[in-house]
């Protein structure tokens, strides 16, 4: 594969840093200005992603006008670190892949900003919320537009920070603070993979710029490529909530719903997929790591679907579904050149229909006094007709109803999975059926049947400022697939080294023929269980089915995390700190401690006694001496 020509930015492209700078500056402005900006802060903040969107659109049109060979534009801003053989520039790369992401982030982002004006209207901290949202947009754009892994990592941490701030936005809820902390901690595990991976890249290539890495990748040994690939995958798993680092995403639903829609569905959680696709040259060298990506994706798509089946919290069902859909993208990304374009295609479609459904869920919550339990819904289609229709479009798109967006992208992925291995294909197919099942369950429990909401709850349609974004997103969910299907493969392939092949809208394949009945079966089963005439208890019925219980408990993700990470960690900290009780205050105030016996105290490191400190030092000196001597002998 020949490395792509990278042209230097001129004209409009040299302004592309504004994409990031506009929301970034406005976020800073709102945070610094404080209460002064309360009356107009949200308006200004909403204009930021819109401005970025317009710019991104102009850039996109310019790229369209260029030849295939020079669609990759590099904009060097300045030398970030330039010491010796280390040369890391702060720069952006506008190419086929990054512009698609920029468009997705700014368009969905703009709609969610508009929606949030209504959704957060009564929140006293609305300005701060919008500032964080803008911060997120800026960081996410940096993540996808960066021309090297180092700057990408900055964006990566930035979206993590914004996500952390937004999950914990309602500080008065202790669950929100815990969830925020959990997201942060789990993501640190992923970051470990990223940072070691980037260090490894620097070691291998002396550069972390995409163009250099892509050029140098061919010279890696298989082992090097596998290690690097797995490190990047670890990072991707953390950010994209893939098994085994999935547990934070469900808890993250504690954040305001627009946040769930923007960050935890449409954009940030797909960053892992972006990372894998962007690192295609590395995965091209290692069959093993690519296979692991596919396996992780497949496991997650099933695990997410399983969780989606057993939750009653509408946002958690959608979160499980997000996990599952990202699993599909990972699966596609792991397939390699044949799958990259499909992964991104599904990612874009998913961005639309999932943001649509999350915002729809927000609209429902808005109508029912922030109730998230679907057992307390029912028959809402009469009260919220617009939301119902838009949500329905999202539903049809995700289950893959013919000619809606999910139909195209998911079928391509299932097909590609069968080409890779029939096991992956069958599992992906099963996933499609289960998706249809739990989404139908969600639809029935929320919109149909008898109303089960508590007395005093009067559902009502949301204001226009919330429904218009819903309508636009619904249009996206319906038509994105039709519009992009013929085009996206050809557009993306040069940038990601892909060979997705061409497929027309009306191309029917054998696999596509199987998928549709499987989806239909899922829908029918759900209707039979939850449909007409069936009672849905307001309280969650006790269940002894291990499948249900596992699903309700997030597949015991927390328990596993606790056993593997937390317990040893806590034990360690406790063990070490036992030596640090007392301290200065202990020595002065703890007279009883002195009587309790000097001998016992001497064993502690941090007793507060100078003599024990001195003894530690001398012992340490001896230890150092011993190590020196041992080193000499060895």
């Amino acid at each position, binding site marked *: 594969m020949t490395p792509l020509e990278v042209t230097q930015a001129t004209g409009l492209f040299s302004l592309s840093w504004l994409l990031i700078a506009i929301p970034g500056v406005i976020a800073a402005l709102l945070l610094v200005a*404080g209460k002064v900006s309360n009356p107009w802060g949200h308006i200004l903040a909403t204009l930021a992603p819109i401005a970025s969107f317009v710019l991104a659109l102009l850039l996109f049109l310019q790229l369209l006008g260029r030849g295939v060979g020079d669609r990759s534009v590099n904009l060097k801003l300045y030398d970030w670190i330039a010491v*010796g053989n280390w040369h890391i520039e702060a720069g952006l790369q506008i190419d086929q892949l990054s512009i698609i992401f920029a468009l997705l982030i700014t368009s969905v982002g703009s709609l969610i900003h508009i929606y949030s004006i209504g959704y957060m209207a009564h929140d006293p901290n609305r300005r701060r919320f919008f500032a964080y949202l803008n911060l997120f947009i800026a960081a996410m754009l940096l993540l996808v537009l960066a021309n090297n892994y180092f700057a990408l990592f900055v964006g990566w941490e930035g979206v993590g920070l914004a996500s952390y701030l937004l999950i914990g936005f309602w500080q008065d809820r202790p669950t929100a603070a815990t969830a925020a902390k959990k997201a942060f901690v789990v993501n640190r595990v992923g970051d470990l993979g990223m940072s070691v991976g980037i260090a490894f890249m620097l070691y291998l290539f002396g550069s972390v710029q995409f163009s250099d890495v892509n050029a140098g990748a061919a010279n890696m040994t298989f082992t090097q490529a596998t290690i690097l690939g797995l490190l990047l995958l670890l990072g991707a798993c953390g950010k994209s909530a893939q098994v085994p680092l999935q547990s934070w995403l469900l808890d993250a639903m504690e954040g305001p719903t627009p946040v769930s829609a923007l960050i935890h569905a449409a954009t940030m959680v797909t960053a892992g997929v972006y990372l894998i696709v962007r690192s295609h040259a590395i995965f091209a060298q290692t069959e093993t790591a690519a296979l692991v990506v596919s396996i992780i994706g497949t496991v997650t798509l099933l695990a997410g679907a399983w969780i989606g089946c057993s939750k009653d919290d509408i946002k958690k069902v959608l979160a499980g579904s997000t996990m599952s859909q990202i699993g599909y993208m990972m699966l596609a990304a792991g397939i390699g050149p044949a799958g990259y374009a499909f992964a991104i295609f599904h990612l874009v479609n998913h961005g639309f229909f999932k943001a649509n459904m999350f915002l729809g869920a927000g609209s429902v919550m808005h109508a029912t006094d922030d109730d998230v339990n679907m057992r307390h819904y029912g028959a809402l289609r009469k009260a919220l007709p617009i939301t119902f229709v838009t949500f329905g479009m999202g539903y049809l798109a995700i289950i893959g109803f013919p000619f809606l967006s999910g139909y195209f992208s998911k079928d391509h992925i299932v097909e590609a999975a069968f080409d890779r291995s029939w096991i992956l294909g069958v599992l992906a197919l099963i996933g499609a059926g289960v998706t249809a099942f739990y989404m139908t369950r969600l639809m029935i429990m929320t919109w149909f049947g008898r109303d089960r909401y508590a007395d005093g709850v009067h559902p009502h349609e949301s204001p226009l400022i919330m429904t218009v974004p819903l309508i636009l997103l619904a249009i996206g969910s319906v038509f994105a697939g039709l519009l992009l299907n013929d085009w996206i493969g050809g557009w993306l392939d040069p940038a990601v080294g892909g060979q997705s092949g061409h497929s027309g809208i009306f191309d029917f394949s054998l696999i596509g023929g199987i998928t549709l009945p499987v989806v239909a079966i899922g829908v029918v089963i759900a209707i039979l269980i939850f449909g007409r005439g069936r009672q849905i208890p307001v309280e969650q019925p006790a269940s002894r089915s291990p499948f249900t219980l596992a699903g309700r408990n997030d597949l015991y993700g927390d328990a596993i995390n606790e056993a593997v990470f937390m317990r040893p960690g806590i034990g360690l900290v406790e063990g*070490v700190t036992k030596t640090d009780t007392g301290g200065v205050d202990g020595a002065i105030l703890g007279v009883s401690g002195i009587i309790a016996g000097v001998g016992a105290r001497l064993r502690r490191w941090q007793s507060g006694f100078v003599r*024990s400190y001195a003894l530690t030092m001398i012992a340490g000196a001896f230890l150092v001496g011993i190590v020196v001597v041992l080193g000499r002998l060895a």
Partner: protein
Amino acid sequence: MPALSLIGMDIPTPHIEYGLLMPFLMVVVAACLGVLVEALAPRPLRHSLQLLVAFLGIILALFVTILNWAGGDKAIIALGALSIDGPTYFLWTVLLVFAGVSFLIFAERRLEGNASAFTPSAAAVPGSTGEQEAIEARFEHTEVYPLAMFALSGMMLFPAANDLIMMFVGLEILSLPLYLLCGLARRRRLLSQESAMKYFLLGSLSSAIFVYGMALLYGFAGSFDLSAISDSLQSSTQKDGLLLAGMTLVGVGLLFKVGAVPFHSWTPDVYQGAPTPITGFMATCTKIAAFGALLRLFYVALGGLRWDWQPVMLVVALVTMFVGSVVGIAQTDLKRLLAYSSIGHAGFILVAVTAASQTGNGKPADSLSSVSSALFYLVAYSVATIGAFAIITMVRLRGGESTSLASWAGLGRRSPVTAAVFSLFMLSFAGIPLTGGFIGKWSVFAAGWAGGQQWLVVAAVVISLIAAVIYLRVIVTMFFTEPKADAPVAEVARPGWTTLVAVGFGVVATIVLGVYPGPVLDLAASAGEFLR
């Protein structure tokens, strides 16, 4: 050295390069002038005069340092006693800057109600009538400025010393005033005096160990001169028991000053007890000077013995990072927490020290060596540290500083700006991108990797992730925790402009070092290697 001949009386007049030595001399002169001011100036003028003298000294010294550096003069001066080279210039510049910022925090008078943070009568027994009288008479002493200036002069001597005697002299000049300074806190006198005593006793012990090691090294090499020791490593064929023992003991003395485990036990107690402005001064300037000396000794004098000391440094670095990060998690007092954090950071710098990655050997001339990356890390760490301690002086409860973490709960809602700034410093400590700490971590890890210590780097990355929990905990406490119903609640008091300038410096520098680290990295890289 020319032979002494009593008859001919031809003892040469030592040739001193006063030009290159000038910054050091200026600081010493300013310190001496400070003593005179303390003795002679009328009481109302004293504080302003002390500040004037100290800042004149620092600014002039800084000016001359930069002038000399720009002139490119590098030499071993004063008959081989001092080495004025790239790292020395860099360290002097940094030391003078951070001393200046510390002095800004010393100068704070508003927080204590028109009084400094230092006791009016350090010698009085805490709680005695003598102390009470001194407080009521509104006595005030400003000896803190000359004391700190003397300490600063020692800090400048310490890393520039080219022979062991001079290094020891520097060590003592910097330590003795610090022992006193630790005992000067206006409030919590007992704690302060205890910390001074502990620091003094343990410091003396470490000095004794250092001197013993010095003697052994002299026994081996027949010289105190660092390059002479290095030469004798090459030529010697004799048994090297003296050498190994000497190296160990001298190393222990220096590791004590940088606060490496297992020679760290003084750090939490002293950091907690000392007046907070002094803690800030110690945590930055002492650490900078001590690392400078450590690097010089091990690279210049003992560079040939690398295979012997690298395993030790590796173990010490690992243990230091680990203990600093893990024990830090459980701290309930912010000053202790920052003390453990500073221990952890010493460990990260030791990663670069261990690697002993030098320029040359086929690498480009200005690539990041161990020395330059350690220098950069020290700067990045210091800007956040000095800012953090400045903030601690501002967060108060019933007039005094409130350092218990529990009393900071909900501070983010009461004083969002202060809490946000403190969070920025915490994020820099944690090594989050776009802060100086991130670039610092990267540079030491890169130097570690380049020096062939890959596994140490991997361990360091893992530990740095654990360490992030310490700082996260502080942020969570400030922003996401409700104060307990019966717990005391700390408030942010409005400080004078000097403290605000110090905090502002910390904020700007932390961000600039993260976003646009180029100039400082270049400076650190161009500081290059030690002159031998």
